[in-house]
Each structure stands twice: as C-alpha cells, then as structure tokens.
C-alpha cells in the first residue's frame, strides 16, 4: 500500500527520513570494506599471475596470449548471471576507457567468463553491447577456462540456489598485464575512478605508446 503524502506532518516526517537516509547512505558507503587489498597483493605480487591461454572470443574466432604480445592488457573474470560486481566492473572499466581517450586505444580489456556452460561467446557478445566496444568477452571449453583461471590465480566456485540453479563466487580483481604478458598490478572492485585512472595510466606509460 502506497503511503499517503497529503498531510504536512507526513511531509515533515518524509523530509527528515529522506535526509536521514541520505546521511545514512553516505556513512554506510564511506568505510565500505576494501576487498582484502593487502592479502591479495601478497599473492598477486608473486609474479606468477598470468600465463598462456587460448579461448573463444565474443568477436568470433580464438584469442590467445600470443595475440596480445606487444600490448598491455587488462583481464578479469566473471559471469553474466552476476547481479552486481560484473556489470559494475564492466561499467567502471568502460568509463575508465572513455576517460583514457586515444591513449587507451591499444589497451585490450578481456572479460573471461567463469561460467562457460551458460556464457557462450554469443551471449557474451550480446551482454557486452552494453559496455565499451573495446571490451572483449572470452569463453571456451571448461578445461580451457580452468586453465586460464589457474594461470591468473582466480578462484571460482558454483553455489547452488533453488531448483537446480546456481550462482558463482569468483575473484573480482582486474589484473593489469604489461606488453610482455607479465603481471603489473590490479584494480580492486572498490577502487575509485581516480585510482583506476592512475593504475591504467601507469600500465600504458610503462610499455605502451604515449598519448
């Protein structure tokens, strides 16, 4: 039942509630849990992140690590049945690419599904239409997905829901790889736009063409 907003008493109450809500939202958002940056950094800096892969591209055909040699790239893992982290990460990356402008033209951004059973290259292609066209979706056989996930130290796990359905846990970090395919750093889910830009610029300045 929609509550009435006719009396001035209600209006006052609503006004107060609205401000309280906004204030509460600000307070709640501020200390939003950092996704274990420190813990991951120690794993990620082990210089073992990355490695060979050969997957099926959302643009058709295969894409392998060899195709990426000579240009830096960003790679992250997710799935399209993902309610928050994947669309938000893709959107954030799209915005970052927009801000990079021409400097980011050669940056390849790869979104690898950890759910190849549902995320065919065609489904990835359709999904990615909502984001920057430079982002490439990668799917493939389960064994090939497992191999690339292992290479990038990416954790994933199927979590059963009702009616035989499932959702997934997965690593949400965006790995930044240099022109030699070597690990250069990562972007965390809760990094703000400034931090994302700084990390991407550093990656491009290191090996890529200057803009």
């Amino acid at each position, binding site marked *: *039942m*929609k*509550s009435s*907003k006719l009396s001035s008493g209600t*209006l*006052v109450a*609503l*006004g107060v*509630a*609205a*401000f309280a*809500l*906004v204030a509460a939202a600000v307070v*709640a*958002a501020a200390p*939003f*849990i950092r*996704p*274990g*940056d420190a*813990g991951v950094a120690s*794993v990620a800096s082990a210089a073992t992140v990355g490695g060979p892969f050969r997957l099926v591209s959302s643009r058709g055909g295969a894409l392998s690590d060899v195709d990426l040699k000579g240009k830096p790239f960003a790679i992250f893992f997710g799935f*399209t*049945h*993902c*309610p*928050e*982290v994947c*669309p*938000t990460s*893709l959107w*954030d990356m799209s*915005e970052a690419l*927009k*801000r990079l402008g021409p400097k980011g033209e050669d940056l390849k951004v790869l979104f690898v599904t950890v759910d190849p059973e549902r995320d065919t290259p065609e*489904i990835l292609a*359709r*999904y*990615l*239409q*909502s*984001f920057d066209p430079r982002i490439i979706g990668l799917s493939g056989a389960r064994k090939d997905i497992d191999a690339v996930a292992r290479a990038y130290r990416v954790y994933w796990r199927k*979590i059963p*829901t*009702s009616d035989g*359905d499932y*959702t*997934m*846990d997965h*690593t*949400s970090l965006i790995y930044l790889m240099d022109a030699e395919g070597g690990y250069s750093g990562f972007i965390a*889910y*809760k*990094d*703000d*736009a*400034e931090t*994302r*830009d700084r990390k991407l*610029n550093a990656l491009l300045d290191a090996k890529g063409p200057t803009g």
Partner: protein
Amino acid sequence: MLNSFRIPGAFARLCRRMYLEEALAAAAFAMFLLTLSAQALMAHEFKAGAIEIEHPWTRATPNGASVGAGYLVLKNEGTTPDRLVAATAEGAQKVEIHEMSMKDGVMIMRPVAGGIAVPAQGSVALKPGSYHLMLMGLKQPLKQGAMVNGTLTFEKAGTVPVQFKVESIAAQGGSDGGGHDHMTMPSGK
C-alpha cells in the same frame, strides 16, 4: 463558506482576514516543505503492517542479462520482530534472497536461508555489497526509469505489493541513483 458567517461586520472582516492569512501561510509552508522533502518525494515508500519499506530499487541490466538485484530498506516500527521471507518481481521467473560479500578480492554470493530478520524497533538494509533480492530469469532487460511491480512477503506482516524503481546501471544506492562512489568525481585525468 466565509460569506455564510452571520456575525457583526468588524468581527467577520477579522475572521476573513485571519482565514486568508492562514491560507496564505499554509500555502507558503506547504511549498517550503515540498522543497525540503523533494528527496523524499523522489524516493518512495510502502508499508506492511508496522514495517516501512523504503525505496525499493533495482539496477538497469546489460543486454541479454537474465539476473538483476533488488534493494530496499526495511524499518520495523512495531514491537515484534518480523522476517522478510520471499519476494516476487514482474518479469522475473523467481526472486531469491541472497547475501554478497567480498573476501580477499573474491566476490562471495550466498542464498540466505530463512529470510532476513527485521528486528522490533529496528531496521535492515538490502544494499549493494550486502543483502539483496536476486531477480532471476529476467525475460527482458530492466530499463532505467521503469517501475517494476513486485511483492514482498513477511512472516508476520504478510504479502504486500511494492514497486522497484529501475535506476542507472552504475547505481550503488541513494535515492538519486547516481551515488556510485567510483563515479562521483568529474572525468578529469
């Protein structure tokens, strides 16, 4: 109605002036309150017994996506605890209650067994990075600006209709839908 007063002229004039002034003052006050409560009017509320359901919203979904997330705040003004146990949303095959969390860079998603407690005189928020309604089997993408009809079912307060407001794909909470903290800075380098 004012003309129907059958009282001496001076008193009638006084009454009339008071009424006018009161009416004007009331109008001005109403305008003031409307301005003040613009935020509240942009948000929306529903009620289930003693439980206030504040601003149910969802995020616009990418092309072909079959899942979405629903968020809202539940405030229990009553003296008995209750529990959100189920929900529905038009266009979604089913809605489940899930909890998301982050641990060492891993996004963790869990169905919440038995629903979400709404303590007496307390509140609980379904919000990004936490509890949410998982809209599954979406027949069509959720388009920003649309309203999605749905229901919430409470253990005690029963089932009530609600509407989820579809906010931007970047929305992370806040009634304006633009509160994504990644994106609040201008697009400078």
